[in-house]
Structures are given as structure tokens and as C-alpha cells.
């Protein structure tokens, strides 16, 4: 088992195994999105208060969850990279950043499109929205800090430190609807008692959440493979890969 992990930590094995996993993840992502979208848009009933507009939830909530989940993956990988100087962790951390930024932007715009018909405004400076916007800036900060430093390993370390500092924002986002009086509704699913949502809406939401996870796994592996090729470009195995392609 340990040798497997050790091998997986080596860029070459990671590249091979990730490549083998990718088609399966692609199929899984497609199926999950297909089922989730059909269920959410067609099968699930309309909301008694919000009518059909609530269907934005099937994009908005998974995107918002992923915006925080990806950040934790990025910061976790960054911590591993800082402590154990593991190259692959650096690769994973920096590959997370653009994907997380996409999810955050998606959560923000779909939130705006939901806020307009429900609250009467696209944007309000409330705690949940503001802390999510800060999350987007943190992602962009990590990306630009990384690309501003020439030496890849130094850049990775600097980006990892910034990512770790930014972790304080995650609990702020999560508890913002509790700590402050906000327009944004409170948690409906990630609370300890039973979720206050109809099962016919909850199931497609959870399927969409898993679909977003599978999509993230797929795109992360694709980005990480590119990053590994780029970093190991002078090694023999990359030469072989290039000649075979």
C-alpha cells in the first residue's frame, strides 16, 4: 500500500495513472450531469414560494459548495507541499486555483441572477456575498502570485502560503449567515438536524453536487497532468511521452 502511495507521489506514475482514470471520470461526470439536470429541471416540482426560479439552486449551491471545497483541497495540498516539499502537492495546489475561481465566479453570477427576482437586487453588500467575493479575489491572488514569480518552486511556496492564510475566510463564508443579519438564507442542508428541503428537490441537488465533484476531479487531473509535463520537461520519460504523442 505504502509503495503505491510512494509511486503515486512520483510525477511519472501520477501522469500514467491519472491518464488512465480520466476517461472513467469523464463518463461519470456526463452521466451525473445528465441525470441531475433532467431531475432538477423536469422532474422536481416547483417551489411553493419561489415558483420555478428556485431551479437556479441546482447550479448555484453545488458551485458555492465547490468554491469552498476546492479552496480546502488547494490549501491542504499547499500545506503538504510546504511541510514535506512534495512536488506533486505543489502541482495539485496550483492546478486547483483556476478551477476554484471558476466555481466561485459561477456561484456569484448565479447568485446574482437568483437575487434579482427574489430580493429585487443583483448585488447587496451582505456578509455572505462579500465573503464569497473575497474568496474569488483570494483565488485570483494565488494565481497571479504564482505566475509573477519566475522560479516554479519558489512560486509554489509563496502561493501555498497565501492559500493557507486565506483559509480563515472559509469559516467566515460558512457562518456568515449565522453571525450576521443577512439577506442570504441560512443553511438548509449542511445543518445537523434534518435538512429543511423536500426530498424531490434534495435528491437532484445532491446528484448535481456529486456531478460537480466528478467534474472537478476530472479537470484537476487534466490540469495537474499538464503541469507535471511542463515541470518535468527535461526528464527522459516526458521525452518518451512527447515522442509517442
Amino acid at each position, binding site marked *: 500500500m505504502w509503495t503505491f502511495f510512494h509511486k503515486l507521489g512520483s510525477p511519472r506514475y501520477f501522469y500514467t495513472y491519472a491518464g488512465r482514470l480520466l476517461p472513467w471520470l469523464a463518463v461519470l461526470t456526463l452521466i451525473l450531469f445528465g441525470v441531475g439536470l433532467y431531475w432538477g429541471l423536469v422532474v422536481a416540482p416547483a417551489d411553493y414560494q419561489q415558483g420555478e426560479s428556485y431551479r437556479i439552486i441546482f447550479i448555484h449551491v453545488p458551485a458555492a459548495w465547490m468554491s469552498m471545497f476546492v479552496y480546502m483541497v488547494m490549501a491542504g495540498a499547499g500545506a503538504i507541499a510546504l511541510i514535506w516539499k512534495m512536488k506533486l502537492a505543489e502541482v495539485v495546489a496550483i492546478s486547483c486555483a483556476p478551477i476554484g475561481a471558476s466555481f466561485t465566479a459561477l456561484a456569484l453570477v448565479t447568485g446574482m441572477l437568483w437575487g434579482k*427576482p427574489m430580493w429585487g437586487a443583483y448585488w447587496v453588500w451582505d456578509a455572505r456575498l462579500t465573503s464569497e467575493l473575497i474568496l474569488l479575489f483570494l483565488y485570483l491572488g494565488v494565481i497571479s502570485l504564482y505566475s509573477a514569480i519566475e522560479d516554479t518552486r519558489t512560486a509554489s511556496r509563496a502561493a501555498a502560503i497565501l492559500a493557507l492564510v486565506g483559509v480563515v475566510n472559509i469559516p467566515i463564508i460558512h457562518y456568515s449567515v449565522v453571525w450576521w443579519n443577512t439577506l442570504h438564507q441560512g443553511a438548509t442542508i449542511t445543518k445537523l438536524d434534518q435538512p429543511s428541503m423536500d426530498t424531490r428537490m434534495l435528491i437532484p441537488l445532491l446528484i448535481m453536487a456529486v456531478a460537480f465533484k466528478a467534474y472537478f476531479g476530472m479537470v484537476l487531473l487534466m490540469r495537474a497532468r499538464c503541469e507535471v509535463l511542463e515541470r518535468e520537461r527535461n526528464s527522459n520519460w516526458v521525452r518518451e511521452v512527447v515522442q509517442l504523442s
Partner: protein
Amino acid sequence: MQEFLHMGGYAFYVWSSYALALVILLATLISPILRRRQLLRRLADKISLSGNQS
């Protein structure tokens, strides 16, 4: 079908959300594909160049 597209009067908000999701997720997916293609081409050029020199 008409009714489905109408989304109870919220068509603009609902469908723009789904369209934006499609655009953003596709762009995030395509960017590593393009990067990989460019990278492989660049590395192939480099290899053939160094092969000629030696």
C-alpha cells in the same frame, strides 16, 4: 415544452444561470486541453531541435 421554457416567468434568470454554468464549465474544461496540445507541440519541437544538434 413552451411552459417548460417559460419557467413560470423566470425564464431569463433560470436559463441565463444554466447558460453561464455551461460556458464557465466548458471554458474550464477546454483550457487544459488546449494547454496540453500547445505544450506537447512545444516539447516536440524542442526535442527535434536538440536531436539535430547532437
